[in-house]
């Protein structure tokens, strides 16, 4: 017969904090965990894109336009990369016999800045000779490595979601909190404003806002502009939901208790009401990141977003809009796979968070 293990006092933890409960419930959802792991991986790669990518994003090699994917292959104990040459008619490449170079790790190559400020030239892999390029996902019309450009593009696509969410949610939460807390005419004015913004079709608003900005901006200015435009559209729906939650939370006794302590209105909103909406906000934020990523893709695809030669998933796809290109060089669609995986991972994680966040209903 089994005997129960005696529980020591230290182990006998009867209740878990909301945070611990949250983790416990999240860990049980395997798909959400998988989504989270994929995202962590993607962000880690985006952060170190310069190192992982074999080439810098604007490394041109016109000898290799539309080069198909070329993987290093195993020869003995070495990975080798063959040299290829274009045939006279069009972009069809054939290998030159007995002309290979071994693939090296931590090889010297294009200069880049690690994390944006540390100058470096070491790459994870490569041949160290640009006549023997490694095109994991092929090359585009200028012979630029699609794989490297996807990595550099991920820096923009992945960060735009986070920054955009941070901006629009911070704004939406404060506005929504104020609207719901003070109610009355303040509420009416703010809500009508939200409805006004939400009633304008987003795409037209984006394009007209884009037109309002001067042409010929630098890529970092364009980046900031995209974030601002997407956040400007996004805050309204957030504000509406937060306003609704605040309307019910403000009637709670702890709000009266805080007022009875002499707490100021703004602090009551920020310290007492908004933290009670966090379980919703975290979920909503995770599920909305894809909209920002797709928003950037749409803008760049339409040619009003990130400009060449900077890489973003959107402007890489706009190179693939020609049907003939698609037919002949399908690897140009690779960025869409990256978008697909990222958006799906965010949705899986968000779904899991939603189930886990409801800690009060045990």
């Amino acid at each position, binding site marked *: 017969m089994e005997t129960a293990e005696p529980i020591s006092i230290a182990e006998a933890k009867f209740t878990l904090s*909301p945070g611990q409960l949250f983790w416990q419930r999240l860990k049980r959802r395997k798909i959400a965990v998988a989504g989270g792991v994929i995202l962590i991986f993607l962000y880690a790669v985006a952060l170190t894109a310069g190192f992982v990518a074999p080439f810098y994003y604007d490394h041109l090699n016109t000898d290799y336009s539309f080069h198909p994917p070329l993987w290093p292959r195993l020869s003995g104990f070495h990975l080798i990369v063959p040299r290829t040459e274009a045939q006279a008619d069009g972009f069809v490449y054939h290998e030159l016999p007995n002309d290979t170079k071994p693939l090296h790790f931590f090889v010297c190559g294009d200069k880049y800045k690690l994390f944006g400020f540390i100058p470096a030239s070491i790459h994870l892999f490569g041949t160290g000779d640009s006549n023997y390029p490694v095109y994991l996902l092929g090359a585009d019309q200028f012979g630029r490595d699609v794989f490297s450009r996807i990595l550099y593009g991920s820096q923009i696509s992945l960060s735009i979601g986070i920054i955009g969410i941070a901006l629009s949610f911070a704004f939406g939460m404060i506005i929504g909190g104020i609207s719901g807390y003070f109610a009355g005419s303040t509420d009416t004015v703010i809500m009508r404003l939200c409805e006004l913004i939400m009633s304008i079709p987003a795409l037209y608003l984006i394009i007209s806002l884009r037109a309002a900005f001067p042409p010929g901006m630098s890529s970092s200015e364009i980046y900031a502009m995209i974030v601002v435009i997407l956040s400007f559209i996004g805050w309204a729906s957030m504000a509406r939901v937060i306003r609704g939650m605040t309307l019910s939370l403000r009637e709670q006794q702890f709000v009266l208790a805080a007022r*009875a302590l*002499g707490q100021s209105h703004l602090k009551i909103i920020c310290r007492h009401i908004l933290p009670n909406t966090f379980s919703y906000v975290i979920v909503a934020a995770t599920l909305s990141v894809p909209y920002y990523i797709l928003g950037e893709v749409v803008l760049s695809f339409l040619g009003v977003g990130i400009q060449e030669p900077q890489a973003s998933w959107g402007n890489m796809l706009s190179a693939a809009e020609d049907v003939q290109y698609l037919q002949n060089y399908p690897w140009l669609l690779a960025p869409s796979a990256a978008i697909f995986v990222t958006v799906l991972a965010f949705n899986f994680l968000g779904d899991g968070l939603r189930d886990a966040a409801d800690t009060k209903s045990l």
Partner: protein
Amino acid sequence: MNLLEIKNLKMDFGKNAEALRAIDDVSLTIGAGETVCLVGESGCGKTVTALSIARLVPTPPANYVGGEILLNGQDILKMPNGELRNIRGGVVSYVFQEPGAALNPVFRVGNQIKESLKLHKPEKATNEEVIRLLKLVGIPAPESRIRNYPFEMSGGMQQRVMIAMALASEPKLLVADEPTTALDVTIQAQILELLHELKQRLGMAILLITHNLGIVGDMADRVAVMYAGQIVELAPVKELLRQPLHPYTKALMASVPKLRGDADRLSAIPGNVPRIGNFPAGCRFAPRCPMAKPECSEKVPELVEVEAGRWVRCPFWKTS
């Protein structure tokens, strides 16, 4: 001078034609260190009267149309909001009915007490002070309890935390709005014992709102009985319990179940408190009063001092 003087306070909900009188001509004083009980059925204006002391009833819908509230010599109703925030929690603190709802569910209790300290005693906003306060209100192992969330505590513990929060700033007046209604009877006794003891130790005044006359006898120095927005009887506790003068007070006391004797059916006051805005003409208790006379529903009776310190709002207090 008294710590709190409410003089002829009149408050409406709504304005002009839609105005509903919630507090009608309420006068009440509390001296320093005194315990006053405010007694009455649900919906008779006890809580709004108590919240008015720190102007906590939102305006609108509330609308103060007359009278004044002097707390510590300052006129609360005319005070600018900024100053009022120092009064709230600083001079007058509140303990509410449901401790579970009055604590913010997403913060550790230690931080909530610290918030109170930060507002009124920023120099003392330390863990040591929080632990001292928790010890003061009789929470065992306060060092580990400060890291608890409210839902990890029992109702009695939560109420002790609320009391610790209220005491953090060493207020002159503690308003306890039915502090024990949501607790079971043994915990109720403990909390009341605690309030009593803290009052002796810290010398603050207490305004205790209750509808439990048993509590009144234990705690109060003086009792004010409210009915339909008016004070109907105000008296020192011993006199009031020995010999209630107003028919409503008598009816309230008759409806307390008695343990001894061959108890018959528990007597209840027939009917309900009239809804606000729907008060009968004349004496508001007349429709439920067993001794009502025809003239009762003609003229609103005045609150008159019939003995030193005893006020009654019934012209027939002698005969009834």
